[in-house]
């Protein structure tokens, strides 16, 4: 296979215009679409989006503080300010929606008394994605959420944490990340239908349904525990890094932590342990009985724990990968930042913070045909208001 020759400087969605009315619950979706080159107009109140106040922060040489959260999630948009308290500006918002291909909204349209089906009547090919916390109707429809509450009610938090800790959330706001991804998928799916047929539509998405769509084994345990040899009942309580299959766990090496697994082939793992002379009793015939396969795997994890404790973590990781074992070295962000793999794939991109350029995360896919942009920047609050509104004939404010 030939290596991919592209760099990432532009996008493939230059043909679409998106009105971004997403708060933290769906902003990752409009970010992905913006990073792919769409013309994304983000509407902010006159005093600026409150997400601009989210940390972490970085100061530039002039002492100005920049939100790194916003640099990541709020970049590559044009910024238009709208005062929802002003009837005329609410009408401007309506006009902006009607000049878009796709609207992604977490509640701003309703706050502005704009009915989505009225919008559709005025522009039948429009796609409107409405994101709510729990749904537009039902007993919890009015409930408030946060990423932690969404993860708790959605079943994510119960899976994370150890037997001796409380249930935990993951880093950041990954339940909202999932929601944002579904918002992007809903947008582009309905856009495809609109391009084919001229028919737009409203797409509804609840955070509370996005979260349990990404729980791997959790619902399987509920439905099929009787078919799973490792399942004792219909719930698997959190248990640190030990995977539901019992075959993956983070272990302590002499100088760091490493995720060890006997998959995909426990016999190959056994051969390695024998080669090292550290197999303990694993060659006992009782473990050779196919009926006792699970017992053998559990015992192998114990033997591995003893062996791994004596190993240098870095050496063990590379030796394992050389032998095609999917071990994973537990890396902190500074080490991730130095990943030779990311360097070799020219993954990072530049983020503009005032007059500064800072390195940061690249795109989660590499495209051959039309590369993804390599520079990322945040518009000042309202920087594009005049230019955008002139285009739709609403310059007077």
């Amino acid at each position, binding site marked *: *296979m030939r290596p*991919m020759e592209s760099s990432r400087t532009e996008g*493939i969605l230059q043909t*679409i215009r998106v009105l971004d009315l997403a708060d933290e619950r769906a902003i990752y979706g409009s970010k992905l679409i913006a990073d792919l080159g769409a013309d994304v107009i983000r509407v902010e109140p006159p005093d600026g989006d409150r997400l601009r106040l989210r*940390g972490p922060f*970085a100061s530039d040489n002039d002492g100005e503080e920049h939100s*790194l*959260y916003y640099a990541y999630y709020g970049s590559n948009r044009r910024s238009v300010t709208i005062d929802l308290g002003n009837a005329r500006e609410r009408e401007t918002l309506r006009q902006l929606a009607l000049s878009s291909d796709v609207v992604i909204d977490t509640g701003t349209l309703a706050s502005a008394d704009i009915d989505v089906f009225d919008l559709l009547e005025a522009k039948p090919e429009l796609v409107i994605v409405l994101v709510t916390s729990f*749904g537009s*109707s039902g007993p*919890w*429809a009015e409930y*408030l*959420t*946060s990423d*932690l509450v969404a993860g*708790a*009610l959605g*079943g994510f*938090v119960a899976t*994370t944490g150890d037997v001796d*800790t409380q249930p*935990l959330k*993951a*880093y*950041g706001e990954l339940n909202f990340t*999932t929601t944002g*991804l*579904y918002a992007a998928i809903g947008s*582009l*799916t309905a856009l495809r239908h609109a391009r084919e047929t001229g028919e737009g539509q*409203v*797409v509804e*998405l609840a955070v509370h*349904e*996005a979260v*349990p769509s*990404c729980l*791997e084994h959790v*619902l399987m345990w509920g439905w099929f525990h009787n078919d799973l040899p490792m399942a004792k009942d219909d719930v698997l309580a959190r248990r640190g*890094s030990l995977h539901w299959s019992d075959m*993956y766990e983070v272990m302590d090496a002499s100088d760091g932590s490493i*995720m060890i697994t006997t998959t995909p082939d426990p016999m190959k793992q056994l051969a390695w342990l024998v080669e090292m002379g550290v197999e303990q009793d694993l060659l006992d015939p009782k473990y050779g009985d196919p009926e006792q396969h699970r017992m053998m795997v559990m015992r192998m994890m114990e033997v591995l724990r003893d062996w791994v404790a004596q190993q240098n973590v870095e050496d063990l990781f590379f030796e394992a990968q050389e032998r095609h074992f*999917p071990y*994973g*070295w537990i*890396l902190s*962000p500074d*080490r991730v*930042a130095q990943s030779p*793999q*990311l360097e070799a794939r020219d*993954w990072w991109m530049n983020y503009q913070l005032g007059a500064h350029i800072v390195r*940061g995360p690249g*795109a*989660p*896919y*590499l495209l*051959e*045909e039309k590369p993804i942009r390599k520079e990322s920047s945040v518009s000042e609050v309202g920087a594009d208001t005049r230019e955008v509104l002139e285009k739709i004939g609403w310059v007077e404010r």
Partner: protein
Amino acid sequence: MTGALKGIRVLDFTHVLAGPYATRILGDLGADVVKVVSEKRPGNTPDSTYYRMWNRNKRSLSLDMSTEHGREIARALAERADIVIENFSPGVLDRWGIGYDVVSKGNTGVIYIQMSGMGDGGPWGDFVSFAATVHALAGLTYLTGVPGREDIGIGNSFNDHQAGLHAVTIMLAAIEYRRTTGKGQRVDLAQYEVGVALTGTALLDYFANGNVQKPVGNRHQHEIVAPHDTYPCLGNDRWVAITVMTEVQWQNFCTAIGRSEWTGDPRFATALARVEHLEELNNRIADWTMKLDAYDVQELLQNAGVPAGVVQTGKDLLQRDPQLSHSGFFRKTIDAGAYNEATPFERIPLQFSRTPVEEYRAPRAVGADNAEILSEWLEMAEQDIQLEEQIGTLR
């Protein structure tokens, strides 16, 4: 199939979770997903309960890729596909003679997506990985947990789902691009890069400030807010999450739990002060929650305008959650497919006003759709299909 992606043909070589989750979504949305499987590759067949979870709404084609005829048929199918998708290590499809360079010659519009663990090329390009490997290498395991420990991490194969969702997003974007340009393209999606992107703000913090973020339990990573944690309740391992995000919510919280005096306590007067006295605050809240049922705490606080929610298990979602019950989130397939009875499932969380997703079909038996697919995609005559069956290509 009906749905917004009607008419999109997907040739699906995926296995395990990341790839099948992506094509499950495409199938739900109405694409014609042809899943290529083989009796000779156990584990990626309906016998596996895991397979049953991720392979609804796809048709099943069995092909023995170790035979020349099998590879020829795969190539002919790839030339008629809108999307070819796989999540092998780099190089497998090339060895089968259906690499991008070959397929795109006869099918210039093909969107060809490869979801390998580490991406194509680079010093780690040949590394093998499952989600737990990616979580480790991407920093997700390190950053998810409590201070002083790096052995907790996310308790499910979350990054597989994320890779699938990112794959669907980029495929749909590529469809829009092809509409205006006529051009398909190859997409190299590294599951590892998806995982790293999920820690984006921690990496920016490192590059901008040299700050190496550490695990912080349930504290909010982007805002100074407290309380923001899970608290024990009555019952065996029952917990409730409480997140006070604003000062108004703090007032409401204290009033709702009958501790109005806390609002006047200088240790708790501002979010910053509460974060500085977090242990004291959390102990006091836990003293209150542990005498109560988690659902009662949720209802009391939500009625007072405070975001709170029970730490629900899968069983709670399936049996107790009134909101998911109201929205008909859990359903059963309209047919039995490869099984003796309908398969329970969670529907896609997207609800389309014009192209609703209503038909969910169970995973199909290995090769159950061979004749139909070969006839529809390749216009193969019945006797030719029978011949391939006889010589063992279709197994």
